[in-house]
């Protein structure tokens, strides 16, 4: 069975060309990733600004195209799909965006964001059916249709608006949901409910989730597997328990150590390695070399491949060059299966 969504050696370069005034920026550099069809799980794509995670999300959504490389949905190249195949792709891959206010057209009530796709994709045969499905989706995320429908976006809280977005995603019964920083603009006390509904989308409805974020803590809490990006390349990937609890790539280690723990007893130590990177993409070798505390000569000359350190982890670092290279760069091979919901998360 072909994977649900597959990126093969995808590179995305911005700028450059004949009339360019600035050097071209490589947002994604030869990244391969696949989402399997049979085991819907939650995968985090983590990285800071400039990592390429937003570009990756846009390419997966089909909103942007790769400069080189291919994107396959259910075995079909997205750039060569027929009209009806495209429509199917459109429906089955849905986003949840970061900004809970800008995602709504201020002219319409919040119903609009639910009924528009419902009508376009013919979720029901008539208005009554559509309404029933909409209400069902709202209930599933813990919202009351009576308190939500008929209201304007500014009359709901940020948390509620975001939950409506989750309901919208659920409504279309997609196969994949790309959640791009869904809680970063939401108050801390309201985040848990949203994350919970996203989690249930996967565990109860079998939808694969791609959780794109810079916040490793929530990524750890919600995901099964994680891909850490650094300046357009995969630094480390694997099961979230491995990568977060025992990071192997120096960049991941730096990230984890820099997270401020909400525990006054466990204070920040000194930072290994340097802070801002001064390079702009033209250098050879490993992209992290100028900041790496373990840098070796080989790091500046060659780009490390993905070494499979354990069953559920790869890292692109020469420290682990004794481990075998991952065949086909298919990161999905090191993903751990999702742990089923042991206890129900509702009260």
């Amino acid at each position, binding site marked *: 069975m072909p994977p649900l969504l597959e990126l093969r050696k995808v590179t995305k370069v911005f700028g450059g060309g004949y009339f360019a005034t600035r050097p071209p920026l490589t947002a994604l550099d030869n990244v391969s990733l696949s989402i399997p069809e049979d085991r819907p799980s939650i995968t985090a794509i983590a990285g800071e600004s400039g990592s390429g995670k937003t570009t990756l999300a846009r390419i997966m*959504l089909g*909103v942007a195209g790769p400069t080189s490389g291919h994107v396959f949905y259910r075995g079909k190249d997205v750039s060569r799909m027929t009209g009806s195949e495209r*429509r199917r792709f*459109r*429906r089955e891959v*849905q*986003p949840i*965006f970061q*900004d809970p*206010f*800008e*995602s*709504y*057209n*201020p*002219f*319409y009530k919040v119903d609009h*964001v639910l009924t*528009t*796709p419902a009508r*376009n*994709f013919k979720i029901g045969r008539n208005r009554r059916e559509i309404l029933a499905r909409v209400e069902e989706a709202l209930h599933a995320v813990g919202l009351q249709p009576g308190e939500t429908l008929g209201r304007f976006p*500014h009359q709901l*809280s*940020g948390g509620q608006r975001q939950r409506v977005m989750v309901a919208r995603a659920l409504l279309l019964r997609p196969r994949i949901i790309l959640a791009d920083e869904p809680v970063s603009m939401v*108050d801390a006390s309201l985040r848990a409910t949203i994350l919970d509904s996203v989690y249930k989308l996967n565990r109860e409805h079998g939808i694969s989730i791609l959780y794109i974020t810079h916040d490793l803590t929530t990524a750890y809490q919600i995901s099964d597997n994680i891909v850490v990006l650094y300046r357009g390349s995969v630094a480390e990937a694997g099961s979230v328990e491995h990568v977060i609890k025992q990071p192997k790539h120096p960049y991941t280690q730096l990230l984890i150590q820099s997270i401020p723990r909400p525990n006054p007893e466990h204070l920040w130590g000194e930072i290994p390695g340097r802070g801002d990177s001064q390079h702009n993409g033209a250098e050879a070798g490993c992209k992290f070399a100028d900041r790496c505390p373990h840098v070796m000569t080989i790091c500046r000359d060659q780009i490390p491949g993905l070494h499979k350190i354990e069953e559920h982890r790869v890292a692109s670092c020469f420290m682990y060059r004794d481990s075998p290279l991952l065949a086909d760069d298919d990161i999905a091979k090191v993903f751990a299966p999702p742990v089923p919901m042991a206890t129900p998360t509702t009260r």
Partner: protein
Amino acid sequence: MRRNPPLIGGLVLLIGLLLFIVVGQIVYGTEGYRPLSAPPMQSPTYEYPFGTDKVGRDILAVMLAGTPLTLRIGLIAGVIGLGLGTVLAFVAAYYGGLIDGAIRTVVDVGLTIPGLLILILIAVNVGSSLSVDQMGLAVAAVAWVYPARTIRSQVLVLRERPYVEIARLSGTSGLGIIFKEMMPNLMPFLLANFVGAVSSAILASIGLEALGLGPFDSPTIGMTIYWNIHSTSILLGMWWWFMPPIVVLGVVFVGLFLVASGLDEWSNPRLRKRT
């Protein structure tokens, strides 16, 4: 929205003027607008409240007959100009690429050429003097350029809004996005632009008429001004002849400006988030 003094003020002025015209036409009648309808050079009397001009026109009748004509020119030019400008702006901004490049070039070049110059060329080339409706069309040909530019900028901004992206990902077609997602949010801006377009159209038409290129037989405000200049009414002290068109113009422009100002205030995102 009730708390929009400019909008209310402007509407009051404009509606007041319209009422004056409507009631006046019914009560007073407009036949006196033609020359030789009354004894010439009369200062205001009970019979002729606004007096008469050098060739015997009843000036009150002139204002009652002529103001609607001038407003009509403004409306024709405003509607057609804005309509054309809006369509081109949306097409350029939404589809981008070569279409955008072509439209933008025409617009940018058009903006550098003085509109009045083009109007004069058109008027001179038509031969016999322009009718009121022809004037409206002529001004429209020039009036679409500036709205096309400003509306295009606004559409470019709107195009990047997340909710437009979501609508696209929800399966809405290009035209659907233009009409259902973007247009409603631009309504106040479009209205403000419309009012501005009407205002400039009236001004442009008056400019043409004052130069003597307007419809000679019509008592439009601009023609009245032309006759004033032609007969040196200021030197003759005939204040009842040059004051009414100036006052009416003042009311029209201030009214339109206030309405545009009020609409501008409304279209500003003051209804922003309040988390």
